[in-house]
């Protein structure tokens, strides 16, 4: 099972990214199973938010919060702390949206790509970076998920941002 923890602030779309990944995983396949959920509770703009995606080739029945993740994806670098490594598998990686380099984490200036495509948040950019680094879904599947689950008027810009992020990883 692949497990991804998403960190962001209320309004940055961390849970949307978690859902898009879950939806993408079996969008072309009947024998793959995804589960996505937010950290439960009242929603507040700006408050730290966690979201979880679990991906497996059999139905995912463990609905508890991930204790050991393959990836932690952080949309807001003020939420990074070295203690997060305790939530990673040995082979796990942290991907952070940041202009600064962070020891032990993959960093990338996702905000600049978001800005280029007039997006208020870098959630789909970070989704693209995860796709590029992990290959848990293909960029084709990710694009289909955006087309299936994001409002029509923002699909194109989010797809462009996602594909740019995938390309950045490849280069």
């Amino acid at each position, binding site marked *: 099972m692949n497990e991804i923890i998403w960190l962001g602030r209320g309004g940055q779309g961390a849970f949307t990214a978690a859902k898009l990944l879950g939806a993408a995983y079996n969008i072309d396949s009947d024998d793959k199973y995804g589960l996505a959920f937010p950290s439960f509770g009242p929603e507040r703009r700006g408050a730290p938010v966690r979201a979880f995606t679990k991906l497996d080739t059999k139905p995912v029945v463990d*609905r508890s919060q991930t204790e050991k993740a393959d990836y932690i994806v952080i949309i807001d670098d003020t939420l990074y702390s070295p203690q997060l490594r305790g939530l990673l598998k040995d082979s796990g990686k942290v991907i952070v949206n940041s202009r600064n380099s962070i020891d032990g984490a993959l960093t990338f200036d996702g905000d600049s790509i978001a800005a280029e495509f007039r997006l208020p948040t870098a959630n789909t950019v970070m989704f693209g970076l995860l796709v590029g680094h992990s290959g848990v879904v293909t960029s084709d599947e990710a694009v289909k998920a955006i087309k299936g689950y994001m409002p029509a008027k923002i699909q194109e810009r989010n797809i462009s941002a996602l594909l740019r992020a995938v390309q950045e990883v490849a280069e």
Partner: protein
Amino acid sequence: MSKKFLSGNEAFAEGIRLARPQVISAYPITPQTIVVERLSEMVEDGSLNAEYVHVESEHSALSCAIGASAAGARAFTATSSQGLLYMAECLYYAAGGRFPIVMMNADRSTALPWNIYGDQRDSLSQLDSGWIQSYAENAQEALDLALMSYKIAEDKRVQTPYMANLDGFVLTHTYETVDIPTHEQADKFLPSYETDNRIDFDNPKNMAFSAGPDTNYIFKYKEHKGLLAAREVISETEKKFAEIFGRKYSGLTENYRTDDADYIIVTLGSIAGLCRETADKLREQGVKAGVVRIRYMRPFPNEEIADVLRNVKAYAVLEKDISFGNEGTVFTNVNSALKKAGVDAKGYNFIGGLGGRNISAGDIENIYTSIANGTDAVNFIGIGGEDNGK
């Protein structure tokens, strides 16, 4: 059939859309809100042709559904926690009036301390109200139960309202892929609602009347018989459902690796999956572990429970409920089933997940270990045992 990545609430709303209710009365409460929001959007965009009534409270939400049902309409409402308790008076009116309303309840803890997270103390406190009660494990089952609920509730032999329970957040807010049937399939499965139990100007009759000591007990007996008849109707309905939609369900309970099991956890709702996974792990270590998931608390699966626990060395009942001063209510019900059938297995109660506390794989493994070694009668996960006067 189309595949979609949906939350439990959204999946349930899709099932209700396919059931074509004519009146929806809604009052929002976390974590139920999404289901009435989605239904409101469906009415707005025309994909559901229903009268959508915004009411001022849960008491009014169910009163409105009762009125609609008395007019011969298929009615839906939804609630949770304090909302369910606030409408408690009306639960009995709906059941006693034999109005086959369907209500979704997002299982959530009860105040105080105030808490919006999931446990099952709200719905389990209403077992005596005369409603059928189902507990779903995942979003697909939630959608399927939404469709099956009306067929069961409206059956002439049953004529009883139906409460479909979904664990708050863990099920209502968790997304997974579900198959959504087509309207053609759904219409083949569920015809429109026809009843004599309605206001009819051509054939006027008294409804929702009083009945004194000379006849009251007969109505109560018939209410009881209606709920008991749901046993058979649930089984027939699931058979028909499998024919049309291809998904099979197993009646009042679902057994997992129980045939040769020494140790069984009996539970309900969304935690059952993790119990099955833990049973698998223990089987690899040579422990004969099994799981029984109760799908319906009313009617209660007396025979099923007694049969499956007849030869175990010990069983645990894991529930998100405590009846203060005694034990978990599911445990009481399970023990009664065993006593009636003369089954003498050793049983223990585990209270977990209150106020949304996580139940981990480790907690479940500990339950199997504890019942193999013997423990207190009533145990609070995260705290410890109570000797419970034994």
